[in-house]
């Protein structure tokens, strides 16, 4: 583990232990180590002693905001569906949040999914998380049995091989173009803050836009061809909290259940569109996908347009309205057909 990670881990543990011991929070949401190299598990510490299981490294790729609404609810005293909300302050939750995760918390605040006063946020400036699929690709099919993180390198080793790769070359696509790696809200800041100056934030999207329509259609259908409709992308996403997702609607049934091309395409289009103006490009969807589908490119296009057309970026200001929940009288409308009165 790199020194920075070790230090951040220590600080997270200490703070979580302190908050749990003092009773300020009832639970602390962080990461613990997984059973394989390059895996981590979201983890809820409920006793001060659990804090030692918390860790921090470049493989903390899930977005913890995803767990917050349910976790907060689980800590409320039980009540019937028609009972009024309990009076008095409710138990709080501590959570580690990088830039994107903190922005998703802001989105959840805007959408009334979490109550800021019940959160204690430990902000961590992200150095960019590592994409284990990229590391696997660098290992060329050989199983990585151990992956050690250095400051700027990853040491990968397995049966009969050892490999050192540049850390940045294995960083996730979304992290490469992230301009908000520092938490936008937090109660405590953990570890060093690093600022990034990212140009070409939408270069990946522009490259696709530059292709002819038929090539784009081919790109899109090829990209999603191996989708197994497991919905890991949806379920990993902190924006997806609808009690009944459109994929489960049966009357009308918006999306067929098979993995035939039209069904899969509609699933991806609508999933992405439901995230329009709300997606923080946290990359959890892409990291969760077992099939390596780059569905982030879909949401990224929508973020690009929301930014260019409405000047909106998701999750920066708790007071702001999500761009699709508001309007300006002078919003662009060149795409509309308007016939002049004769």
């Amino acid at each position, binding site marked *: 583990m790199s020194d920075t990670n070790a230090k951040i881990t220590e600080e997270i543990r200490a703070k979580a232990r302190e908050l749990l011991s003092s009773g300020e929070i009832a639970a602390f949401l962080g990461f613990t180590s997984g059973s394989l190299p390059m895996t981590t598990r979201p983890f809820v510490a409920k006793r001060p002693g659990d804090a030692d299981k918390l860790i921090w490294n470049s493989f903390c790729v899930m977005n913890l905001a995803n767990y917050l609404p349910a976790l907060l609810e689980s800590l409320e005293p039980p009540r019937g569906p028609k009972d009024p909300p309990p009076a008095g302050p409710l138990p709080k939750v501590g959570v580690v949040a990088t830039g994107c995760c903190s922005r998703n918390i802001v989105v959840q605040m805007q959408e009334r999914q979490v109550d800021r006063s019940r959160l204690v946020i430990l902000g961590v400036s992200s150095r960019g998380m590592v994409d284990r699929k990229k590391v696997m690709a660098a290992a060329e099919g050989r199983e990585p049995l151990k992956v050690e993180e250095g400051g700027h390198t990853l040491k990968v080793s397995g049966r009969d091989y050892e490999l050192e790769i540049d850390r940045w070359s294995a960083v996730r696509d979304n992290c490469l173009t992230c301009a908000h790696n520092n938490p936008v809200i937090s109660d405590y800041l953990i570890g060093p803050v690093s600022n990034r100056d990212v140009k070409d934030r939408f270069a990946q999207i522009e490259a696709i836009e530059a292709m002819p329509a038929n090539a*784009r259609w081919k790109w899109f259908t090829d990209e999603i061809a191996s989708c197994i409709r497991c919905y890991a992308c949806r379920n990993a996403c902190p924006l997806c909290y609808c009690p009944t997702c459109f994929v489960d609607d049966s009357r009308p049934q918006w999306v067929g259940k098979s993995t035939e091309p039209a069904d899969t395409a509609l699933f991806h289009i609508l999933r992405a569109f439901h995230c329009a103006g709300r997606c923080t490009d946290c990359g959890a969807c892409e990291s969760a996908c077992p099939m390596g589908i780059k569905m982030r490119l879909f949401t990224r296009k929508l973020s690009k347009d929301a930014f260019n057309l409405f000047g909106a970026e998701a999750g920066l200001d708790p007071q702001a309205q999500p761009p*699709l929940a508001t309007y300006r009288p002078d919003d662009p409308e060149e795409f509309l057909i308007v016939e002049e*009165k004769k």
Partner: protein
Amino acid sequence: MEDKNLQSGTNLAASPTANWEPRIVAFLCNWCSYAGADLAGVSRFQYPPNIRIIRVPCSGRVSANMILDALKAGADGVLVSGCHPGDCHYISGNLHARRRFGLLKNFLEFLGIEPGRINFSWVSASEGEQFSEVVKKVTGRVKALGPTRRLVKEIRID
């Protein structure tokens, strides 16, 4: 209103033939565009019979789900039309919708859906003639594109 053509069972995604005529689903808001369509009829402004009108309370009611559902069912084109800005019966339904439609149109084109498959317009209750012009324009666009294939759900029965 039952649409005999939609019920006929012919394959909407049929191959283009000499007399192929596109089918265009038009979501029209109750207060402006639907009334505009009505006025077009009453005033005898001719427009191509390719559209199948679905009346909705407001253009703001039309979601991406509904537009895509029409394409999935084999519609060759979609038109969504509502009140001009400022005229919305619900004050801002059309303005909210405008943002949504702008994003959706760009997004579908980004994924390779042909520009012109989905169309948006403002038509007021007094714009019968304009309504017929919009329908002519949209029908022309869709005709030029040919039958829809992308996103169409197919079931083969032997």
